C-alpha cells in the first residue's frame, strides 16, 4: 500500500531580507527504497526549486546531509522513509550557522576545531624518502582507524546539551579527534599537552554525560568510551600536578 508522505520543512533564507523563518508543508507519494535523498531531490525538482539542503556522496560517507529528522539529528541520505511515520518534520542542525533551509555551515565550525585540537601528527621525526616505513602493529593501525572514522557530519554537536548552551565547547567530534591522536604512537604529544587542549570546562570537563552524542552518531563511533577515557586521563593528569613531584 503506497503511502502519501507529508513533509514539514523549516524554511529560511538568511540572504533574503524579506525571509522569515517558518515551516512549509509538502506532500509526496512514497516509492520503494525511498530515502530522504530521493525524496528531497524530488521535492526540489518537482515542487519547489528554491528548497535548500546539502548532499554530496549520498552514500553515508561524506557527512554533508545531517539534519534534524523528526527531532533526531541524522544523515538524510541513509534514512529510509519506510522507517518513518507518515509525517516527517525536517529542521536544520542547531549550533551551526544556517546557510539556508536545511543547509548549515559545518565546514567553518570543523576547521576551527582542527585549529583548537591541532588535528595533525606532532612529531620531531623527519620523513626520509629513501627509508622503509616505520613499523606499526596492525592492531594499533586498526584502533587508530576506528577513531578516525568520524565523518564530521555534526550530529553529535547538534545533539549535545553543552554544545547547545555554550559556543566554545569542543563537543564530542573534537574529543574523538583528540582521542584519535592520543591513540597514535606517531604523535609525540603527552597527556600534559592534551590537557592544554581539553583540560577545561570548554573541553572534556564540560561534558555532562547525557550520551545523546553516542545515541545519534551515524557511524556508531565509540564516543561514550572515549569521553570516559579522556576524562579519566585528564582527571588524573590534574591530580598528578598536585603532587610535589608530579607533572
Amino acid at each position, binding site marked *: 500500500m503506497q503511502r502519501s508522505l507529508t513533509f514539514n520543512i523549516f524554511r529560511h533564507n538568511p540572504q533574503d531580507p524579506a525571509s522569515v523563518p517558518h515551516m512549509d508543508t509538502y506532500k509526496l507519494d512514497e516509492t520503494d527504497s525511498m530515502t530522504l535523498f530521493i525524496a528531497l531531490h524530488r521535492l526540489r525538482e518537482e515542487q519547489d526549486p528554491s528548497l535548500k539542503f546539502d548532499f554530496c556522496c549520498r552514500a553515508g560517507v561524506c557527512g554533508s546531509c545531517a539534519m*534534524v529528522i523528526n*527531532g*533526531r539529528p541524522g544523515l538524510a541520505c541513509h534514512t529510509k522513509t519506510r522507517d518513518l511515520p507518515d509525517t516527517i518534520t525536517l*529542521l536544520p542542525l*542547531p*549550533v*551551526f*550557522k*544556517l546557510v539556508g533551509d536545511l543547509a548549515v*555551515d559545518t565546514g*567553518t*565550525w570543523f*576547521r*576551527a*576545531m582542527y585549529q*583548537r585540537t591541532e588535528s595533525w601528527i606532532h612529531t620531531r621525526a623527519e620523513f626520509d624518502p629513501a627509508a622503509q616505513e616505520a613499523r606499526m602493529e596492525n592492531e594499533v593501525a586498526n584502533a587508530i582507524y576506528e577513531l578516525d572514522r568520524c565523518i564530521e557530519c555534526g550530529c553529535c554537536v547538534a*545533539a549535545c*546539551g553543552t554544545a*547547545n*548552551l555554550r*559556543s*566554545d*565547547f*569542543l*563537543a564530542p567530534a*573534537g574529543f574523538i579527534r583528540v582521542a584519535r591522536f592520543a591513540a597514535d604512537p606517531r604523535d609525540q604529544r603527552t597527556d600534559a599537552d592534551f*590537557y*592544554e*587542549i581539553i*583540560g*577545561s*570546562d*570548554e*573541553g572534556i*570537563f*564540560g*561534558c*555532562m*554525560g*547525557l*550520551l*545523546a552524542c*553516542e*545515541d545519534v552518531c551515524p557511524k556508531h563511533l*565509540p564516543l*561514550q*568510551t572515549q*569521553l*570516559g*577515557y579522556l*576524562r*579519566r586521563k*585528564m*582527571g588524573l*593528569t*590534574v*591530580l598528578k*600536578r*598536585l603532587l610535589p613531584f608530579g607533572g
Partner: protein
Amino acid sequence: METDCIAPARPRSRADGLLDWVQMGTGAALALFACMHMIFLSSVLFGAGALNGLSAVMDALHIETLGGIGIAVVFCIHATVAARKIPFKAAQAVTAWRHARLLHHPETWAWVAQVLTAFILAVFITIHIWTGLTDLPVQALKSAVRVQLGGWFWVFLLVLPALALHLVIGAWRAGVKWGLITRENRADITRKGLYLLGGFLCLSLLTLLRFRLLPLE
C-alpha cells in the same frame, strides 16, 4: 543560539579539572550521607523507641552535631560548584528546554530533571539543615510534629522524590562521565538505577508515612 564556528577557548585551566573532582566528590559524599540519613530515620518503622535509641547513641558521640555541620559545608560547596553547569541566563534556559523537547532523548530529559530538582533541594535543604541543627538531638516525636503540623508533610512529599531523582541521576551521570558505565553495561546499569530509585522512594515515603501516623502523645 547560532554560531559561525566553534569559539576560541580561554587558556586552559587547572581549576576546571579540580572543580570537576570536587563536584563529583561532594556529590558522592552527599549521596552517601542522604542514604545513611534515610536509613537512620527509617528505623522509626520499627517504632519510635528504635529511632530515639539510635539518636541518643549518636548524640552522645556528637556525631549529629559534627556531621551536620560538616554536611552543611559539603552541601554549600557542591551547590556552588555544580551551579557552574546550570543554564541561569533566560536565553540559555530556553535553549536547553527547546533542545530537550526536540531531541526525545531520555537522558537529556533526566538532566533537565536534575537541574529542576537541584533548585528544590537547594531551598529545602538549607532550611532543613537549619531547623535540624538548631533542634538536636533527633527524636521521633519532634520529627512527627514537624511532619504533621504546618503542612510540612506536603513539602516532604515533593522533596523526597526530588532527592531520589537528583541522587540517582547524578550517580548515573558520574558513572558515564568517568567511563564506569560503558556501551555494553549501559542498559543493565540504567535498569538497576531505576530499581534503586524505586527502592529509595519506597523506603523514604514509608518512613514519611510512619511519621505522619505516629501518635503525638
